[in-house]
């Protein structure tokens, strides 16, 4: 088993317009999606991120406040999951509810340390 990182971006704009009922339904989909991975022992950990923060940039060390980018590019959270290969990890992310809200989920393999 290899480890993969899911990085969630966007999906927030749609939420501003959602009704409480729609939001609850959406939340339940997230719960079901993650719950299924947890049951299969594929979920390692994950957290949502606060939207605001700080960014240091470049050699001049310019400090800026978040949000740092357009809503669509803000990372909203991450998950660390287990899968046998990139194909499986990608397939698992296909059901990610963020896609319904026009967001993205990026699938990246955690690069193993080369053996010494």
């Amino acid at each position, binding site marked *: 088993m290899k480890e993969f990182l899911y990085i969630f971006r966007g999906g927030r704009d749609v*939420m501003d317009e959602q009704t409480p009922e729609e939001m609850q339904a959406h939340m339940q989909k*997230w719960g079901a999606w993650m719950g299924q991975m947890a049951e299969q022992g594929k979920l390692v950990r994950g957290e949502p991120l606060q939207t605001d923060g700080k960014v240091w940039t470049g050699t001049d060390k310019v400090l800026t406040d978040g949000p740092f980018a357009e809503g669509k590019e803000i990372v*909203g959270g991450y998950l660390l999951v287990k899968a046998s290969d990139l194909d499986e990890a990608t397939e698992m992310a296909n059901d990610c509810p963020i896609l319904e809200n026009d967001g993205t989920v990026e699938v990246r393999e955690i690069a193993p340390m080369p053996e010494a």
Partner: protein
Amino acid sequence: MADSSSQTKTEQVVDHFFRHESGRVISHLSSQFGTAHLEEAEDAVQEALIKAMQTWPFSVVPKNPSGWILTVARNKMIDNLRRKQKVVNKEDEEIYRIAESGDTSKMSDVELEDFLKDDVLKMMFACCDPALSVESQIILTLRILCGLGTPEVARALLKKDEAVAKAYTRAKGKLKEIQMKPELPSKDQVKERLAVILKVLYLLFNEGYKSSTGDDLIKKDLCLESMRLNKILCDSPFGEISEINALMALMCFHSSRFEARIGSEGELLNLEDQDRSKWNAELIETGSYYFHRSYRKEVFETMTEYHIQAAMAGLHCRAKDYESTDWEQLLQLYDLQLASRPSPLVELNRLVVFGKVHGIQSAYKELVKLEGQPFLSNYYLFYAVKADFLLKLDSAESAIENYEKAMTLVENLAEKMFFQKKIDWLKSPVQA
């Protein structure tokens, strides 16, 4: 990441939880900060729900989710208000301080229920302020107290999204003008103010009940929501008032037939054709409880429309089958209804019962007298009743004509199907 099975997962959050919390928390914030800040209250609740939606699935649902949402929303609201007002005056600062002082995040559901219950009541009175139009009262009630969004209200009331959004903005503007701070009415105002709330709840219930054909859950939601709000009234300090209980009884009796009203092909079944074993016994019992509460000597004043309709619905609920309905008592109730609120529709319904008591022949004679009345001549039920009578008087051909006339006038698809079935049956070779 916690995943102990004893903890609540997001899938286990009770149905409509967000929607109902939205109503409670907006009511609370509006009661504390005044309706001038209604929009800020709505935004704060929206942000709190988004936050819940973004964080809960990653872990487990907080032990006291209601307190969590209330606390997050309140803190957002105060942050936003502070940010907006560059200079905060002392008075506002005091309101913020008080609002922040109670630790709502640790309250149990029961404590929270107690903490918020007056606010919901106050908001009910505010949304049903007599100075607002009925349309505004209904839209405010659905949006604020029931937590429905614009598209849901539009679907429920069969209106366009834009029309509902506009009407809501207008209604909010008016509400801000007339109700600075939602409050409970004084004792001598209560009856008059309650009458408006009950009327709104009655309209909502009817809107949901009249065409609930199962294809749109939102219609059933309207019934359930109006019952939920009415229950809040029943449990309030005004809960003894007779009319509140009569309306609650009426709603319980009617909704006991919710499932039985729909036939196997989605068509609406009338009382005669419903499988009475499908009637919800628990709701009938609850209805009877509220019905008795409404008639208690100490509280009963006059027989209102709600009392009459509850009594009628109760009679049907108690009858083992259609034929054993207590028609004589039902006819008396119709006489009472006709006397207090004359309408061609009541007259028509009364004639059906009249026929049961005095025979179809005399009922048909009475019905013919109503022919040509401006309202009834374009009303499909008139022709449906006429056809039913004719059928019983063995005039199948004239009956078919009248069913066909009813079909051209009816809009509801389920009811159209119902008449089509009757016609097909009458025209079938077995009949001929």
